[in-house]
């Protein structure tokens, strides 16, 4: 595979190099894109990685979504380009309106880091290639604001349109409907709180994230609506 992936770096991002390493180890070609650039350098897919863009001040993702690169990414997504937001990246995507809902503080009001079991709900998206609904994965979480909220209508829409990508088996943060990840209508924009790049090696405790990133590497551009 020679799929080129752009991993976006905002000031305060901290998982960009972990994500690059994980993708490269799977045979992809990842490169870091600086937030103030507006050129995506012809990459085939975008990852918004975890971290604390702009310190997570005001709200997670609230400042980052105004970075010049976000406009280009929105256009890229509108054209069907694959975009994966991990943790802080998921928060940026909701703030940017590219995914519905919002992420607020965990119910326990504590930051949470540790392994979680999640279940694939919908596989019709860029990270579900080759997976089947109901499959269980062990992938670590690492967040303070991972408590997914949305209006009842949105929730209903997500369910009816099969856009809930993952649910937690043992909801750690209070997310509505145990939601750990969602996609847009086309399935080419996905946001998830767990960190697949942290589950890419058995010596670190799990390899279940590798298949998600592999799926991203193989993901086709969807037909724009």
């Amino acid at each position, binding site marked *: 595979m020679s799929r080129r992936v752009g991993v976006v770096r905002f000031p305060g991002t901290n998982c960009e190099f972990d994500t690059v390493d994980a993708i490269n180890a799977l045979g992809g070609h990842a490169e870091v894109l600086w937030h103030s650039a507006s050129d995506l350098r012809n990459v085939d897919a975008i990852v918004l990685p975890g971290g604390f863009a702009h310190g997570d001040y005001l*709200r997670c993702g609230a400042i980052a979504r105004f970075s010049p690169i976000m406009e280009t990414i929105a256009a890229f997504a509108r054209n069907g380009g694959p975009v994966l937001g991990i943790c802080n990246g998921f928060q940026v995507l*909701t*703030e940017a309106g590219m995914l519905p809902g*919002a992420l*607020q503080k965990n119910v326990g*009001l504590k930051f949470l880091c540790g392994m979680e079991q999640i279940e694939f709900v919908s596989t019709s998206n860029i990270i579900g290639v080759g997976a089947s609904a109901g499959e269980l994965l062990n992938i670590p979480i690492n967040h303070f604001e991972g408590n997914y*909220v949305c209006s009842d209508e949105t929730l209903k829409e997500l369910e009816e349109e099969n856009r809930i990508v993952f649910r937690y088996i043992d909801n750690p943060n209070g997310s509505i409907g145990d939601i750990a990840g969602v996609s847009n209508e086309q399935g080419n924009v996905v946001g998830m709180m767990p960190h697949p790049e942290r589950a890419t090696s058995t010596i670190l405790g799990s390899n279940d994230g590798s298949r998600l990133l592999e799926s991203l590497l193989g993901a086709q551009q969807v037909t724009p609506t």
Partner: protein
Amino acid sequence: MDRRELVRFEVKVEVLPREGIANPEGSTIERALPALGFETAGDVRVGKVIRLQVEADSAGAAKTIVEDMCKRFLSNPVIEDTTVEVLNA
């Protein structure tokens, strides 16, 4: 607009979780209160207050600027409501 006519206004924005949206911070405080001897307190909601200064030619204009700021930036309408108050109107 003529810069010399601008006045500095001190504006206060209150950002509170929307009615119906769970407020983990408020609930946590609420749960802790009885143990600390505050049995008669309840209904706690925690939000943010943002104070800033804006230059505008009138208090009304200052308020409009900050309301725009709220909509675009200072709050997330999915979960938050805001109120804007010009303090030296």
